């Protein structure tokens, strides 16, 4: 809004472009702009503030903390399409829990992708937490089953289950994920306490379809948005919050263990205009 002196159609168009350019999507953008028009902003800076307010409101309902179990071990399942940052986010979470003085077990339930187990193992060693793994090609449900027996036996505070990336359009792979969840449910009451969907900030409108399908199949309870340290704005979470009411809990902002921050709707909305 630098150099703008009045609120006119051109300015509204410019704001629309910023939101669409941030992957908010047309439907949600038009809805936000419509609500801002009704507030009758008198100046360019006020218009921008109103937009930030509207977005913060949409996201405020959806800010959330990770669901932690009170007395028993907490089980967190990490899911999402290929390459979004699941394994790396798990490493960051493990480091965070460890720093909080909690005991952590990781389950290498991606038994499919080349070197997936080794990748998680390197992270487990760096963070100095335990890892349960089987051989490549093993049944992810079996790895998960063993992990849950272990946390029950040792009263471990947190179990984080790493799963293979999979496109939400592949029903056999989605069924496999549902089975991993059923193993959690059957082996520990209340588990999985958190099913975290990892979304890449660079993704466009497909993120909505991912969120819908993963929620339908495995009951997603929270989102983590990764790679926000890049040039992409990740505005798709606004559309997801608006249409599916899924809480955004975490932000991944880099490739090291420290690069994990709690999601703040207000900070996120402001950042759209930077």
């Amino acid at each position, binding site marked *: 809004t630098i150099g703008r002196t009045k609120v006119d159609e051109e300015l509204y168009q410019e704001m629309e472009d910023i939101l669409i350019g941030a992957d908010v999507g047309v439907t949600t953008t038009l809805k936000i702009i419509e609500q801002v028009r009704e507030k009758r902003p008198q100046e360019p800076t006020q218009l921008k503030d109103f937009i930030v307010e509207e977005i913060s409101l949409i996201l405020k309902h959806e800010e959330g903390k990770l669901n932690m179990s009170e007395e028993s071990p907490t089980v967190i399942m990490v899911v999402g399409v290929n390459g979004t940052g699941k394994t790396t986010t798990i490493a960051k979470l493990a480091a965070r829990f460890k720093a909080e003085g909690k005991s952590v077990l990781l389950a290498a339930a991606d038994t499919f992708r080349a*070197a997936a187990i080794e*990748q998680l193992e390197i992270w487990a060693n760096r963070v100095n937490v335990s890892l349960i793994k089987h051989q490549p090609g093993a049944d992810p449900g079996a790895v998960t089953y063993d992990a849950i027996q272990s946390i029950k036996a040792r009263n471990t505070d947190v179990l984080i289950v790493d799963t293979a990336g999979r496109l939400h359009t592949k029903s056999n792979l989605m069924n496999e994920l549902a089975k991993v969840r059923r193993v959690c449910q059957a082996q520990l009451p209340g588990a999985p306490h958190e099913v975290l969907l990892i979304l890449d900030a660079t993704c466009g409108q*497909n993120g909505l379809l991912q969120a819908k399908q993963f929620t339908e199949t495995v009951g997603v309870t929270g989102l983590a948005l990764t790679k926000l*340290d*890049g*040039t992409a704005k990740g505005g798709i979470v606004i559309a997801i919050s608006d249409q599916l009411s899924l809480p955004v809990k975490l932000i991944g902002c880099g490739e090291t263990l420290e690069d994990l921050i709690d999601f703040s709707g207000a900070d996120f909305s402001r950042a759209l205009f930077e």
Partner: protein
Amino acid sequence: SLSEKLSAVFKNLRRKGKLSAKDIALTLREIRLALLEADVNFKVVKEFIRRIKERAEGKEVLESLTPAQQVVKIVHEELIGIMGESSNQLERAAQGPTVIMLVGLQGSGKTTTVAKLAKHLSGNGQNPLMVAADTYRPAAIHQLNVLGENLKLPVFDMGAEADPVDIVNASVSRAKSANYDTIILDTAGRLTCDTEMMAELSRMKEKTSPAEILLVLDAMTGQDAVNTAEAFHRELNISGVILTKLDGDARGGAALSIRMVTGCPIKFVGVGEKIEALEPFYPDRMAGRILG
């Protein structure tokens, strides 16, 4: 689909003859919405709509008995025109081993695609050497080695402590002495705003003079596809693009954005996690997918 939406717009036109400016505006709006929903960058959409508008105001639509179909046909033609040729031809070096360098953002599918390309080239009678030049990501070298073992095709690595520029440099010597005719470089994923990492790619390019520098881009990339493609192109003068994960339901509008903005050819598409899942790029199929 766009055809259905445009038919609905034109269904309300009872008269023949000149379409009003309002009719054309409604038509263009539907096309704009369809392209934005398909993740085409909004600036690219503006330019594309400008081209369609010119043709929509012309005789071919105004004198057509089925103006909706005619507009869809125009949109389809313009899209295919921008998408370019169907080609999966890779350049060969004039002499010595051909170097193919794969670059891109984190997680786009580079390592998997290196293996897919090796299989493809080996099937065409070439003798490729894969090079593990990602020393950053945990187990990245191991990942390429496992893929190489599965394919029974060779992988060159110098461990995770070596410098990626030294690795690619050494791989050229290795290829020459062992008679590999093609070298495929796997590089670490990186952000375009990471100047040091982008400069590392330039140093690799300088050392190996690749015949092909291919940007590996995730088909579900949204508006940011333009920033990414422009930045890699500015730094490296990329020779082509490989669009991955097209086996999903992402509309793939990033393809139109990259073509409009860089003019680089899309050479291959990744259509699955298996090593066979690499196909040539078909412009007409991509156009149909983007239009929905």
